[in-house]
């Protein structure tokens, strides 16, 4: 079974290496946010001391966990796009006719996507460092397990989407409906209390957003603290998304049965 996982990871990795544009854009996107957006916001937004920060922080420091989340969110959607592509191209069939258990095959896909997203995150953090945006050394290590969890969660969301989307063309629309609300209605750009100042409703929606919890889990880990509730939420969301996508890919019940022709 492990052989199979490694092979799937290997395939995803070599596909990723082949797509230099994807790698580049996955790094340029957060860097632009960090250097352009954050610089402008720095003066506009006052941040008070809040957990996990012990002192006043600059906005650039605040936004980094959100951008890490964004890297993983985009990567999760990208992997799901490649799943839909795989299905149109037929290689999904190859995967699904393997005698390995289906949940294991799909989990392997998720692990492969997560590994790639983590690579992107570390390259992003390395690029941010020369601009003075650094964190406790151990923090870089501490985020690793959280990144695996958040990567799996966002990947599972992509998997779920891929089981419901039957055509590549429909994908762009869905991406916009998922990525943007998920990113903006979260604690990635502003803390939730700041959002509550303008609208309690928005704050409440954001507090329900699993992406918020993934970002918070990363934020705390980066500063060597553990936010168990955020981790719990992220884990629960992962299990929910994965279970739902297993249903979607179930040959008897799922949507694949109605779609695959």
């Amino acid at each position, binding site marked *: 079974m492990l052989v199979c996982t490694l092979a799937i990871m290997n395939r995803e990795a*070599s596909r990723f290496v082949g797509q230099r544009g994807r790698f580049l854009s996955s790094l340029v996107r957060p860097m632009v946010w960090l250097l352009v957006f954050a610089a402008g916001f720095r003066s506009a937004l006052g941040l008070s001391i809040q957990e996990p920060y012990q002192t006043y922080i600059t906005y650039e420091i605040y936004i980094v966990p959100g951008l890490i989340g964004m890297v993983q969110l985009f990567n999760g959607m990208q992997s799901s796009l490649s799943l839909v592509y795989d299905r149109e191209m037929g290689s999904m069939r*190859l995967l699904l006719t393997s005698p390995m258990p289906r949940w294991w095959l799909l989990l392997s896909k998720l692990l492969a996507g997560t590994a790639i997203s983590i690579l992107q995150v570390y390259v992003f953090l390395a690029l941010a460092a020369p601009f003075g945006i650094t964190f406790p050394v151990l923090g870089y290590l501490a985020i690793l397990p959280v990144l695996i969890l958040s990567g799996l969660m966002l990947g599972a969301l992509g998997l779920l989407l891929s089981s419901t989307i039957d055509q590549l063309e429909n994908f762009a629309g869905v991406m916009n409906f998922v990525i943007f609300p998920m990113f903006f209605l979260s604690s990635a750009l502003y803390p939730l209390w700041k959002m509550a100042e303008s609208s309690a409703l928005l704050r409440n929606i954001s507090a329900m957003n699993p992406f918020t919890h993934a970002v918070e889990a990363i934020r705390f880990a980066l500063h060597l603290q553990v936010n168990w509730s955020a981790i719990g939420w992220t884990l629960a969301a992962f299990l929910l998304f994965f279970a739902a996508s297993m249903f979607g890919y179930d040959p008897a019940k799922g949507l*694949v049965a109605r779609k695959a022709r």
Partner: protein
Amino acid sequence: MTTLHSLPGPYRFPELDLNMIDLTDKQGAMSLGTGLMVEDLSHSYGARKALSNVSFSVERGCFCALLGPNGAGKSTLFSLLTGLFTSKSGDIHVAGFDLAKKPRSALAALGVVFQQPTLDMHLSVHQNMRYYAALQGLSGKHATRRIGEALEQLEMADRAGEKVRALNGGHRRRMEIARAMLHEPAILLLDEPTVGLDTSTRQAITAHVHKLARSEGLTVLWATHLVDEVEDEDQLVILHKGTIRADGTAATLRGARNLGEAFLALTAAGNETE
């Protein structure tokens, strides 16, 4: 054409194994055998019925041509046979395993060549083989040996490092067939495998798979809409509008007519009754 059929020793081992577990002889006609058996299979896409009460079986070592015009339900049948989706009514037995109850054992006994190419263009020939082997649970030396043999047979050992993109359509198809055989399946399913190939490549591939059935004891289900891919001694199942119109030896079914005429007559007869 290359000598695809000059098979080295190791290819014959599965045949010996299958003989040892062959149920047909010991349990008589009622047993499931090691071939393929489809019983009373129906499937609908919503209100549209794609297959209704399809039953047929293929004996081990038989080459069965599943002939049907476009839209007959061949691809639906293949999706059901490969467990891509399941149907509420009917049974499928693959090499004696019930696909619904023991899907993993059944799938392990299947080699599948899909109508759509499923090779990764950006990967090399060897990488593609290796990926498939791993999906089938083959690893390490065993996988290396099997891949080596397959490439040897294809006479592509020297091109193993090339990207699939660089191969022509015929080579890609033959590679897919060889790949489907890597895990030594008992049954090989091919869904219109010659689509888009030129005549001589088409003939070579058809002949190659016929030979595999004859010399290796491989059970083959070959879906096509082209009558010239069917040989007289093949089992012929004609599928039209989701039902079986004929099932028998090709030579018997066609009688004095040529197969093309017989096929048209059998599928036309179906149209009138509807």
